[in-house]
């Protein structure tokens, strides 16, 4: 068994400012050793530790999709020591990626189901990975209707804007893009908070419909009752949790909610599962 603390060496291939306030950047990495990409085989919903020698590591959801080859992408919010350092790095710099870590959205269970993706703010990274995965020509027929509700504070704070607007044009995915507010007279999408848009536009539940929810705590808090109103049972609501992590492999002991370790048993849980654990996230 390989050393689970050893990151794969990668080179920063591209850096893109992701939001108008520049607090988020999308990093594209290429593996230095060609064989490592295969070892890093991941599924949509997993995360990895971005590892900067001498600075530290941070757990970040994988934003690229398993169907995209040759690189991996992460969108990172600048907030602490490691992310601030990362934001100041440049193309060509060498660092490490350790993973993939954690579980993933339950893709086998979601086959032949309607999938409703609900995201807010910068918690849209693994959701982007999921959408790209589902829309891939090899996979689209495995899923029934796909709806996406995604909101941010303002148009400039939406992640992956070009892709969002491309998806908007397609007929095999129903996009419900929203912003809290904007003074742009040409804004042609929704205005309002995510829970409202969910209540008004998300499909009502039947036994073949699942919701994947990822967002800030306040969005999750108000989205849950909206989904319940639409008839979703707690085991049809799939969520991805975050906690402070170090090892990412279930050993260092800090990210637990009850007996579940968010890094290894999660980060993906159904609401029904979360209801059985202390709310320590």
């Amino acid at each position: 068994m390989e050393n689970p603390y050893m990151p794969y060496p990668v080179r920063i291939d591209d850096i893109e400012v992701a939001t108008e306030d520049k607090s988020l950047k999308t990093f594209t990495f290429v593996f230095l050793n060609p064989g490592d990409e295969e070892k890093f085989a991941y599924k949509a919903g997993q995360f990895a530790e971005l590892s900067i020698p001498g600075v530290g590591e941070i757990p970040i959801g994988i934003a690229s999709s398993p169907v995209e080859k040759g690189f991996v992408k992460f969108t990172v919010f600048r907030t602490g020591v490691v992310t601030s350092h990362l934001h100041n790095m440049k193309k060509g710099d060498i660092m490490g990626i350790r993973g993939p870590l954690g579980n993933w959205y339950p893709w086998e269970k979601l086959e032949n189901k309607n999938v409703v993706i609900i995201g807010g703010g910068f918690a849209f990274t693994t959701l982007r990975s999921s959408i790209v995965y589902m829309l891939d020509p090899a996979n689209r027929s495995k899923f029934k209707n796909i709806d996406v509700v995604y909101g941010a504070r303002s148009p400039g704070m939406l992640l992956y804007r070009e892709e969002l607007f491309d998806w908007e044009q397609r007929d095999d995915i129903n996009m419900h893009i929203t912003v809290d507010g904007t003074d742009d007279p040409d804004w042609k999408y929704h205005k309002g908070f995510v829970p409202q848009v969910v209540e008004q536009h998300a499909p009502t539940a039947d036994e073949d419909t699942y919701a994947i929810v990822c967002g800030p705590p306040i969005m999750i808090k108000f989205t849950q009752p909206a989904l319940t109103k639409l008839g979703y049972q707690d085991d049809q609501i799939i969520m991805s949790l975050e906690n402070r992590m170090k090892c990412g492999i279930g050993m260092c002991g800090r990210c637990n909610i009850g007996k579940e370790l968010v890094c290894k048993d999660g980060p993906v849980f159904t609401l029904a599962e979360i209801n059985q654990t202390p709310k320590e996230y």
Partner: protein
Amino acid sequence: MNFITIDKSNWTKGIEKSRGTYQIFGPVEDENGCQIKSLEPGGQPKMNADVTVMSPKSVLFPQTETILTADLDESKEDHHIMKRAEQKYTPRAVLGIRPYDARAIQLVKLNFDTKDYRDPYWCDAYEATTFVGIGQNRPTPFDFSTSTGCGPFSEEGLDVLLADLDDRYLAKVLTPKGEAWAAACGFDAGADTKESQVLFDILKKEAEKNISTDLGTDKLAQKSILDLYEAPFWDDVAFSCINCGTCTFVCPTCWCFDIQDETKHKKAARFRNWDTCMSPLFTNHASGHNPRESKVHRVRQRFMHKLKYFVDKYDQGIMCVGCGRCVASCPVNIDIREVCTIMNNYEKK
């Protein structure tokens, strides 16, 4: 199973002889009390110490340990590429480890050696180590190891168990590692198996008589996590706690750690340190949000982890071996025996 008699007049000579093969660890007195430490040549383990202040977990899990290194000098071809830090895992023998501490290592193994991931630093050290335990003829007043699935003459996790018979040790050799250690020491005076076992049984019985605590843990598994978590007694349990972390520091089963990076000139090192769930920083998010923000959260986490989450996750009993170190060391007299009793007896109204 074979038994060996070791005359105490030969003990020192045998240990010195084994240095050709083993690095020796054992209990020694220093300015901080009795500790399990690496013994320099000539240094002798204090085999009759009551208890060591710190557990021997540091032999496999040092308080701080470099795990990876990297060169940051961009003129070097492999700059910024991390490598495993060089450590030696030559054979080592821990002499005089208490049976409860040997069981603790087996419990910690559940964390570091799993079907999904293997912690190479802990596992390599574990494989290199031979555990030569000593039965506790006189358990301390804090000892409640008979309630935790071990006891003063428990053999779990040991390669050799010694019984102290004043002028000699009677050694029960339990594994091939134990045989190799005895051979390296030149201890080869066989003892009658049947008689020796009878003697062990008597010593065990006598020793266990000295342990007065009979801790109930039988009802922990059947309770719901949320019922215990939401129980009304946690404020009282945590009231006097000052979150100093001493309990986690001395505990032989506390395995939580932190990972940190440091640089010196152009060299980077990633290392891990013991951490403690008593610290708010343990769970503090970068956003400032802390899911265990109050000391009540943190005290509850420690006891729930040891007495409920672990029980449910591994089905190996509680994550406590009854050494009593946390009870003896706590500056405000929080007693895991009392908390365990409260939890075990709790019924949701």
